[in-house]
């Protein structure tokens, strides 16, 4: 962010937003916006509760399992789609439909078919994350330097070595971008899945707070979820920056 032509540090700009929020809250303009000081206080009180840590652990578990599935299926599928033209065409259409489709609308169907439980949330996370991972991996592999592949073959690379030593590394920047976007969508998937189910994890807490109109706790939870998504995305971005030095020079 820049202000009066000067670069403002991110913490400082956050502070400005918090002050604005505090003023609006103190002015009691709307009951759904409590002062930020109250929100922070509520956050500090809910953090150590058993209910909160139970909600976090079940949500984290759904997120991790769903993301692991999305990575384990998405990356290989993207690779295959890039390498086998016919498959890429057939599946590409579906990937493009699903990547823009409102996956949330599918959750009630999943609930009906699979039941109201953790599995449904895991699948929701998976569906939210997998398509962007497939798409980015496919793009990365397709753009991989053909002459490097030729070089490797020329020096006697076996087919699996072409994948592990050339194609995968060439596509790494795109794959990581896909993983980062997938992870952000995955966090959305956990929250939306649990909200719709309403008896699990963070979603249950959200439901509880909003029903009892506990706006301070509600916002505290929003901030915690936001910070989690931010931390996940930043840690993937950190990896991305580490491989950037060669992405720029390709």
């Amino acid at each position, binding site marked *: 962010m820049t202000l009066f032509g000067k670069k403002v540090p991110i913490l400082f700009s956050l502070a400005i937003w918090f002050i604005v929020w505090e003023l609006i809250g103190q002015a009691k303009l709307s009951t759904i916006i409590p002062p930020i000081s109250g929100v922070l206080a509520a956050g500090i009180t809910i953090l150590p509760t058993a209910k909160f840590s139970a909600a976090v652990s079940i949500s984290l578990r759904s997120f991790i399992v769903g993301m692991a599935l999305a990575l384990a299926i998405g990356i290989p599928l993207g690779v295959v789609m890039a390498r086998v033209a016919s498959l890429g065409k057939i599946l590409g259409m579906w990937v493009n439909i699903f990547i823009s489709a409102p996956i949330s609308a599918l959750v009630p169907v999943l609930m009906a078919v699979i039941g109201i439980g953790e599995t449904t949330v895991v699948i929701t996370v998976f569906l939210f994350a997998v398509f962007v991972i497939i798409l980015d991996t496919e793009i990365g592999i397709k753009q991989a*330097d053909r*002459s*490097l592949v*030729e*070089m*490797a*073959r*020329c*020096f*006697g*690379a*076996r087919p699996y*070595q072409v994948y592990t*030593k*050339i194609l995968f*590394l060439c596509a790494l920047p795109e794959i990581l971008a896909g993983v980062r976007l997938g992870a952000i969508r995955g966090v959305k998937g956990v929250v939306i899945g649990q909200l719709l189910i309403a008896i699990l994890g963070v979603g249950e807490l959200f439901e509880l707070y909003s029903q009892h109109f506990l706006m301070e706790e509600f916002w505290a939870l929003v901030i915690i979820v936001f910070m989690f998504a931010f931390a996940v995305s930043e840690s993937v971005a950190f990896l991305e920056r580490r*491989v950037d*030095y*060669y992405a*720029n*020079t*390709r």
Partner: protein
Amino acid sequence: MSADAIVEVKEVGKTYDGGVEALTGVSLGLPRGRLSTLLGPSGCGKTTLLKIIAGLIPPSSGEVWVKGKKVDGPGPERAFVFQDFALLPWANVLRNVAFGLELRGTPKEQRFEVARKQIAEVGLSSFESSYPHQLSGGMRQRVGLARALAVDADIILMDEPFSSVDEQTRRKFQEELLELLRHKQKTVIFVTHSIEEAAYLSDQIVLLSPRPGTVSKIIHPNIDRGGRDPDEIRRDKNYLDVVDEIWQILKQYI
């Protein structure tokens, strides 16, 4: 000459998937331990022929024999130096040069030792841990050459290796290459667009006609290089005659 041909190209033709006929009925022998150049107008199929010899693409007709065996893919006795270098951008010079050995499963210490020696030979010892994007075009090409030398292939295929360097560097490379060949007994096949380069370096020059490429003439320069300095060779009557002969043929293709 063909009695001692390490590579034999027999009636090779190549038609690409799109229907482009790049080569037709190409036959030639490449003498062992000698430097042969492929010369011809742009698009006449020089790269195609080189890749067929390398085993990277299959010919549509005819066959290629290397050391008495029919080619059906790349082999350890052939190494390629690429026009666009084809260096791994994520690996430093040492790893790049050792890459051919890495693919063969040579232990790390051993392959790095070989690579260090080759890097020294192309004069890049102080750049072992640099990355390709930190090097100039000429230096990258040396890395590509060192990589080809590291696998100790008998036959080195080079696709316009000096096309992206300036004239001084180019001449320096030519000397180094000749020097290298003199004491390494390699067979080199070299694609170039430069008549002077072909005449200066080659034991044998293969002139290709425009697409679809066929052999229009094979010239054996027979220039006496023994201990003479480059400028002297470039004033040699034989050398000048060869340059003129090639030019008279290529002129028709413009």
